[in-house]
Structure formats: C-alpha cells, structure tokens
C-alpha cells in the first residue's frame, strides 16, 4: 500500500517538475519579449527624431540594407504590435500553467499525506 502510494507520489512529482519547467520557460520567453518591446519603443522614438534626409539601414545578416524611413517606421510599428500580441499570449499561457501547477501541488500534498499516514501505519504495524 505504501509502495503504491509512493509510486503515485513520484509520478505526480515528475509531472509537477515538468510543469514548473514549462512555467519557467514561458516566463523567460515573456521577459525576452519585454526587453524587445522596450527596445523597439526606443527605436520608434528615435526614428521620429530623424527626418527623411537620413538614410536608414537594416542589418540583415552581414549586410546593411538601405530602407526607406517611412517603411522602416511602419515595420517597427508592426513589430511592436506583434510583440504586444505575443506577450498577451504568453500571459494567458502562463496563467493556465500556474493554475495547473497549483492543482498538481495540491494533489502532490494530499498524496504525501496519504503516504505519510500509510508509512505511519506501516511503522505502527511493524
């Protein structure tokens, strides 16, 4: 009986750790997105400071490609929106994962209790 519980416990524990990892991954991805967001914001603002006389280049690999200022601005704005959307997605994902991990935690704790009780019984018996 105790062994069975123990097995269950281990299984749950693994699931829980896996969940935690996923949560951490999403968290880091979201953080990356955040930095990109701030960076793109700065780029946008600085582009506003420029005027059409300046040429804008985009670094694609080892090449600096000439870009039109307006086009560049539009691109940056689109990228900003994309990043925001991604952040939202990650937010929802994180919430779900948190909830699931909570559930797992509860299951884990209850299993642990059972296990301890079973162990106590076993000890008592012994």
């Amino acid at each position, binding site marked *: 009986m105790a062994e069975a519980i123990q097995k269950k416990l281990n299984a749950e524990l693994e699931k829980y750790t896996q969940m935690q990892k996923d949560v951490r991954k999403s968290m880091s991805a979201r953080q990356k997105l955040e930095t*990109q967001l701030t*960076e*793109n914001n*700065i*780029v946008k*603002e*600085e*582009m506003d*400071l*420029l005027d059409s006389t*300046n*040429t*804008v*280049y*985009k*670094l*694609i690999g080892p090449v*600096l490609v000439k870009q039109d200022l307006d086009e*560049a601005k539009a691109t*940056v704005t689109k*990228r900003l929106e994309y990043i925001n959307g991604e952040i939202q997605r990650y937010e929802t994902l994180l919430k779900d994962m948190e909830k699931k991990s909570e559930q797992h935690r509860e299951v884990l704790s209850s299993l642990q209790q059972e296990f301890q009780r079973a162990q106590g019984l076993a000890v008592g018996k012994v």
Partner: protein
Amino acid sequence: MAEKGQVNIDHLDGVVRLREEHEKVVKDCESRVLHWKKVSGDYEALNERLQTLPDQLTYDIMVPFGPLAFMPGKLVHTNEITALLGDNWFAKCSAKQAQKIVNHRMKYVKSKLEDLTKTMKNFEARVGFAKNLETMTANKSDYVDIREEAGNNDTAVSKGKQRIAHKPNSKPKLDAVLDLREDEENEGEGRDEESRKGILTEEELWARLDELEKLEELQDEQDRLSDNADMNGEDTSSLSSEEEKDGDAATPVNGLSLKPSWTSVPHSKASTSIDRKEEEDDEEEEGSSLPTIFFSHTVEPKKVRINTGKNTTLKFSERKEQKEHSKRKKKNGHNNGHSHHELHKITTPADIYRLFVDVKNGELIPRKSILKSRSRENSVCSDTSESSAADFEERRMIGRSFSHDEATHSDTSDGITEEDSPTAIPLHPANRFEAFSGTVVEKDPMPSAVPHLTIVPPALPTILERKQEEVAPDAPPPEQAPKRVSKFKAARLQQK
C-alpha cells in the same frame, strides 16, 4: 512560556530570513544601479566626442587592425554618423542628429536609474525594519509588544454616528419626507384642536408654502451669512425674528437661515399656511407640516417630528407644543389655540427649532444646533432613547412610510405631504439641536416681493438634491394644490 519561546524562535528565523531576502534585493539593486551609471557615463563620453568630431574635416588616427595591431590612418567624413537605433536598425545622420539620439537615450537611462534608486531605498528601509524586528523577537525583554483589544468601537461608532453633522442632501430629505407626512398626519389626526387647526392649517399650509418659498431665499442669504459660526445662535434668533415676521407674510424664511435654510424651505412651504405664528418658534415644524423638515439624526427624530401621529411624534409634539405655546403667546396671542397644531406643523423655520428641543429636567430647552445629529441624549428632537443609527434609519423608514401612508391618512396635509415629502427636506436629521433658543427676534423678512423663483422649488438652495427632489414635486404641487384642497377637505370631512 516555552511555547512563546518556541514561537519566538520561529519568528526569529522567519525574520532573519526576511532580512536576508531584503538585503539580497538591495544588493541586486545596487549592482543594477552601477550598471546604469556606467552606461550613463559612456553616453556622456559619446556626447563629448560627437561634439568635437565635426571640428575637423579629417583626423589622423591609429586604426586598430585586428585585436593586436594598429595602423596609422585618417578619419574622414567626420560629420557622417551611422547610428544603431536598436533591433538591427541603423540610421545615417549628422553628428548633431546623433547627439539628439544620444540625449534621448540618456533620458531613458536616467529614468531607469531613478526607479532603481527608489526601489533600493525602499528595500533598505525594509531591511532596517527587519533588523529591528529581529532584535525585538530575539530580546523579548527589551521590547514590549503593545496590544490593545479593539472591542470598544461600538460606542465610538455609535457616537460617531450620533454626531454626524448633517450635510446637505443627506438624510434630511428622507426624514423630511417622513416628517412632513407625519406632520401632516399629526396635524390631521392630532387632537381635536388640531383637527380644526388642521383644516385651517391645510389652507394655511398652501399659503404658507408660498410664503416659505419666499422665505427660502431669505434663508439662503442668511445661511450664507451666518454660516457655521452663527448657525446656532443666529439661526434661532434670526429664525425667530423671521418667524415673527412670517407670521404676517410667511416670508421670513430667512429666519431659518443656515441649516434651517434647506430645511426651512420645505418648512416654509409646508408651514407657511399653518404656522405662521409658529414660525417664530417652530421653524422646524414648518417643514413638518409641509415640506417636512426633519432633523433626524437620531432615531428620535421620528418622535421629534410631531407630524406623524406615531407615538414618537406625539411625545415630541406635546413638549413642543408646550414650548411653542409659551412662545407663541409671547408673540401671537391668537395663535395659542393653534399651538398644538402648530407644534406639529412646521410652517416656519422656527418650528423646526421648536421640534428640536432638549428636555432637561422636564423642561424643554431649545437646542442650539439642529444640524448636529443627536448629540444630546435628552434632546427631544433626537431620538435619544434609541440608537441613533438604527433609529435614524427607522425614522427614515417611518418617514417614508408616512409619506406613503399619507394618502391613506386623512390628514389635512395629505396632499401636501405627498408633494412635500419629496421636497420636505428634513431639517438635518434629528440630530440638530434646537436652533431656536426661545427668544424670537424677528428681523424684517425679505420682502415678499422676493421673486418666487427660488420659492417654487421648495428645495433649499444649498441642497441640490433637495432641489432636484423638490423641483420634481414642485411641478406637481401647484397642480395638486386644488386636489390637495379637496383632499384636505375630504380629510377634514373624514375627521369630522
């Protein structure tokens, strides 16, 4: 003690850990601050360089060649700068434009730095606190945890409630409604004398309403003038004086001034017809008769308002009547007969004050301020006997119920009360003290020439709510006047 010691130790561990965590945060903040400071320094240097670069067309420099070698060379196109904007975007610009970009970035860096310093300070404070807590838990003897059972808030609360100063548009309206009905009911149902007077008052009420409307203007002015400081004293005096004058024209509503103002308005309307004479003394009652002025901070107001035939009001009315009697006799000898009725009816602002009377040693002592919620236990107006809060609600309920019941009652003020109820702005709930000290010093009321503009809405000018309410009912009042008359008559008939 062992348990406590144990608990303390646990606390200590927790506190220690807390402190350590806080310190970690502080350290982290410090490192970040260093980083940003470095960045800021770099940008400053860059700014300098951009400033001086365009000074010369070309520079002779040693060009780095790989990681270990340099080569002499020339720096050309000194004004053309290719700036990295971030996220793999570059922009060719002049040195000045580049400077602009650099300044913009500096701003960002500064803001970050500020935030970090703020958080650092915050956490430093927390660290300090945790340290203190630690020492506290460690050395129990030195520090003492002071605890106080918070269980005596009831009285405080109640007291506070009791002492709620009336604000315009607060309960009074409800009370007023109640009172008005009550008053009207009382008037109709009261004693036989009152019934007679009720009839009279009904008719008078209508006239009084007009008068009171005019008085309202006066009151408003007075209120503004005698704001706060003179509220109690002047109100009563002014009220009284006005009352006296009102006796004739039912216009010196101003006597009410101040608090009574908003209450008086309803009073004036209500009581104009009825208690002109009583105005002097019973400004409070004025409201009750027509627009009820209910100073019902406390439960007592129900009682205070003599209007309703309910027990409470009767109680009040009796005393009031006595008081008013004496007062009236002073001023209007002919009003004695109406004293009872007038007591119930609030035709003038003074009536209101009459209503709010403190009973001390069996004597009625006018309250100084009827605006204040019952602060005196033995005040007649306030429901001293009951919890103010509860009573207040009750009163309101009663008032409302009264107002509703009005239709059923055959009171003289039936129609009036209905209309007046919305307009009847209860003098600030019973908590008001008797504004009228008993001495009526009538000033010349504003000439009735005062335009009816303000009078039409019975609402006291100070209280918008009331006005709104009153305005609404005001519209009907004129229409209902004829109806009311009939109702009153009907009531009278019924009474008879």
